[in-house]
């Protein structure tokens, strides 16, 4: 089944991707696709930890089809390509460019949270923060961990869990810290 056959003029499905894209398919790795993809990745790298780890609302980077990359894709199709279609310009992002941006965000969305950082930062900080005579982390765990792998400052570990007063946003929202739950 051809995608072009389904989106010919007059078809019930209005397709802003196809209608604003040029006749000849562009190479997917265009400069503007790379710029949009990098900007989207930066946005998700900031927004995903804030929503997933801190606020714990709907996960931008969780699930098999993550919300964050889908929102970026929907925004590009509906808002950007939709506006360009209304202006009747041929500058709309092509399918290849949209897929390229979607793949970039899909790969990157998980890294700040579920894919890497969400586990890494607590994993290197918790042997110090949760060490107690009961779990005996001091003799069982801590001396096995290379010094370069863990934070050397106990204050930095404390601030990770309890908040830092020098960071206004964190201080403003510090009522959500785990120690006060």
């Amino acid at each position: 089944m051809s995608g072009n056959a389904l989106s010919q003029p007059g078809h019930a499905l209005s397709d802003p991707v196809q209608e604003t894209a040029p006749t000849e398919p562009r190479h997917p790795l265009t400069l503007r696709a790379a710029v949009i993809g990098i900007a989207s990745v930066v946005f998700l790298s900031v927004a995903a930890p804030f929503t997933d780890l801190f606020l714990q609302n709907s996960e931008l980077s969780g699930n098999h089809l993550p919300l964050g990359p889908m929102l970026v894709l929907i925004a590009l199709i509906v808002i950007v390509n939709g506006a360009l279609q209304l202006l009747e310009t041929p500058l709309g992002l092509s399918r290849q460019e949209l897929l390229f941006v979607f793949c970039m965000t899909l790969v990157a969305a998980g890294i700040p949270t579920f894919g890497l950082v969400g586990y890494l930062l607590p994993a290197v900080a918790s042997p110090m923060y949760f060490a107690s005579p009961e779990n005996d982390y001091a003799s069982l765990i801590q001396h096995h961990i290379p010094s370069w792998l863990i934070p050397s400052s106990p204050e930095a570990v404390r601030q990770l869990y309890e908040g830092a007063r020098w960071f206004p946003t964190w201080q403003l929202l510090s009522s959500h810290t785990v120690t006060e739950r």
Partner: protein
Amino acid sequence: MSRWFFVDGSQGLWNNASAAIAMPTSVESGKLVAMVAGGMGVLFLHFMRTRFIWWPFHPVGYVPAYSWETTRVWFACLVGWTFKVAIVRYGGLKGYTVARNFFYGLILGEFGIAGLWLAMDAFAGKSGHTVMP
């Protein structure tokens, strides 16, 4: 902050490690057998998939089949698959293209509303409000 990432998950990691250090155990043959059996199962699915066109199961499906997310979305996938099969079989290409607009709307609506709430909650500082599974 997420209790799973910052408390339970990270403590579980080191509790397991300290338990293994304090009380080492030998290799468990049952787990090795399970690993080999899983690998053989994927090879079997790959063999069938690449040789018989009527074979419906993809080896990639074996990987997410047993995961937390799958336990939350399997019924929605089943309903969607059932609708698609019925529409294609009884409505043909015309039915498929017409119905596709409706299902595009469902996807757009679900993700759009989830994104809207996400933005509102972020600005309001509201936490613990999940729309998606």
